[in-house]
């Protein structure tokens, strides 16, 4: 730039250095609306909106991937148990024990090689009124595999059947009796005099029970229940450990936030969650809504109402020829008069904010009972502002004229992250249903509101109740 002194330049430069003009209120409010839209668009384009999607995909991926991985690692190949009849019994036909659902027991009878006995996964149920009618008393020896995983227990049960020529009648004892006599063919057996034994042996059989005593008094033979309740045991195992399982359900959390701009306030959170459990460890993801109320302070500038007068609108004249008179008609309309003084009125506007909330929780259960589990939960929670709603929109300024409305409360930020930690108590209501109670603590990494000056970050305490279904 040229540096030569010029008096005229200095005159204008000094005279107009502090030139200021006040923008109109209408223009200002219009600009602020546009600015708000611009900021929203910029935030969207800034790429923050891919974060929720990423979090959801990541959570679901972890959830499903973890489940598949754990399921594959715990699954063992199915082995069919061949049940051998070590000593044959003379039967006119085949003897079939029970209906097969997942496994079968095949009896090999030297005289009747085709004889088979099927069991319904250990649930060999014989009704009392349909007791087997045979010529021989058939004490059952049930061998239950105690080793291996519960899946094996559920699927494979070895049964040894000993027949006595003196007694061929099998009487069922309630629901735990182990023979479905319905399928037995009550044809006379031509058996030798000596005691015959049909041993349905498992490959790794280690223990045998005399089913005659079981059938006669099942209560005194709890071992027998191990056959009947194999399925339940498998579920117990999946509940406690070893087998991954999924729980899903609904949750509600009451939360109280501290250190927010609106002082302390309550937040209602609710939604759905899914939990993948493996032993004492768990990972969960949820999706829900968080609804809270807040109060925005507005400054409403008004001009005072001074009064009104009838303002002249128009006049018409009609010539009255009879009276030689000009008839005048005056039209007026009321006109309010306002003072130029500016009155500032503070008004509290009630707002409702709705957030989309996606919690990702990791858990470890340190105490496990059949009906109760106690553990810790922690993880990040993401909140995205979905909707802002004004609950009370009307402001009564009386007869005063509203000049300007200025929202002096800071805006809500669209995205914030929280860290959550809590103690989880799960109560098993039944085989399927679980109730969880979880008092927790949350720390907000971002302030809920936009603030120019750094202040303490909000934190909250809450209690979450979840109703879950065990799959």
């Amino acid at each position, binding site marked *: 730039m040229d540096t030569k002194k010029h008096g005229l330049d200095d*005159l204008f430069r000094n005279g107009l250095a502090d030139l200021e003009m006040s*923008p109109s209120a209408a223009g200002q409010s219009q600009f602020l609306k546009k600015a708000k839209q611009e900021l929203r668009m910029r935030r969207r384009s800034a790429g923050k909106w891919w974060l929720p999607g990423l979090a959801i995909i990541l959570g679901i991926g972890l959830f499903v991937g973890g489940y598949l991985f754990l399921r594959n690692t715990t699954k063992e190949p199915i082995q069919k148990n061949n049940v051998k009849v070590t000593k044959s019994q003379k039967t006119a036909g085949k003897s079939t024990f029970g209906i097969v659902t997942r496994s079968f027991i095949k009896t090999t009878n030297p005289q009747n090689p085709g004889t088979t006995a099927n069991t319904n996964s250990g649930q060999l149920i014989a009704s009392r009124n349909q007791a087997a009618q045979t010529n021989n008393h058939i004490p059952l020896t049930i061998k239950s595999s105690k080793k291996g995983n519960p899946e094996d227990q559920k699927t494979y049960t070895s049964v040894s059947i000993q027949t006595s020529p003196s007694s061929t009648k099998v009487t069922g004892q309630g629901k735990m009796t182990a023979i479905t006599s319905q399928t037995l063919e009550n044809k006379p057996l031509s058996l030798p005099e000596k005691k015959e034994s049909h041993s349905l042996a498992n490959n790794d059989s280690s223990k045998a029970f005399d089913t005659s005593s079981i059938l006669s008094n099942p209560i005194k033979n709890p071992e027998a229940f191990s056959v009947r309740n194999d399925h339940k045991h498998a579920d117990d195992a999946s509940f406690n450990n070893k087998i991954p399982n999924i729980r899903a359900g609904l949750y509600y959390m009451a939360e109280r936030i501290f250190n927010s701009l609106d002082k302390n306030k309550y937040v209602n959170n609710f939604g759905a969650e899914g939990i993948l459990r493996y032993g004492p460890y768990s990972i969960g993801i949820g999706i829900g809504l968080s609804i809270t109320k807040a109060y925005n302070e507005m400054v409403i500038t008004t001009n005072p109402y001074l009064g009104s007068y009838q303002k002249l609108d128009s006049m018409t004249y009609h010539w009255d020829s009879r009276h030689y008179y000009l008839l005048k008609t005056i039209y007026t309309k009321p006109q309010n008069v306002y003072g130029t003084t500016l009155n500032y009125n503070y008004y509290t506007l009630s707002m409702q904010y709705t957030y989309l909330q996606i919690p990702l929780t990791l858990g470890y259960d340190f105490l496990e009972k059949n009906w109760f589990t106690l553990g810790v939960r922690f993880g990040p929670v993401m909140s995205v502002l979905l909707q802002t709603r004004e609950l009370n929109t009307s402001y009564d300024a009386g007869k005063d004229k509203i000049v300007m409305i200025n929202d002096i409360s800071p805006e809500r930020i669209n995205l914030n992250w929280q860290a959550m930690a809590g103690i989880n108590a799960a109560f098993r209501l039944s085989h399927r249903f679980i109730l969880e109670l979880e008092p927790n603590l949350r720390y907000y990494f971002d302030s809920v509101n936009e603030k*120019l000056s750094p202040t303490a970050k909000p934190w909250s305490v809450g209690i979450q109740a979840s109703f879950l279904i065990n799959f």
Partner: protein
Amino acid sequence: MKFTSGKDTKEDLFSFTGIKAIYNRYAPRFLGLCYRYCGNREDAEDIMHDGFLNIIRNSSQFKSRGDGSLEAWMKRIMITTSLKYLRDHKKYNKYLVFEPVIEQQDIPDEEDDQSYPDISQDQLLNLILELPVGYRTVFNFYVLENYSHKEIAEMLHCSENTSKTQLMRARAWLQKRIRISEKIEEYGHKETWSR
């Protein structure tokens, strides 16, 4: 209730509250700036609001270089927005087409040691607004924004000599108007500066 801190920071440009605070602080100054270019209050407000929106859109490009850098950066955006507005609107842009100056040699910048009477801010503003748009634009750039002729030439897509010529003519026009006004006041006429 006050939410703004004392200093403006880049973070203010990323929040609605910050934008509001910046607007309240700088809008009167920038409105005066825009008014100097277009000479119409309504147009000046439009220009200023467009300028603020440009500030929001380009806030990520701002690099703080100490105190006052934000204001200088915003002022630059206001000036370019004003110039764009003048170019885009028919009632202004026909005056921004400058005839090429034939002189081969550089036009020297003249000195002026004359003394001028005290003139109020409103009178000075009215004098500027009476200038033709071309003169006014160059005068604003050179005198009030402290741009060099080279910068002005780049901004107005003309030669440096054209910028200098426009400035000379603007100065001559203003000097003449000021002298006339002085004489009018001497003779006691009730001449006002307002248009």
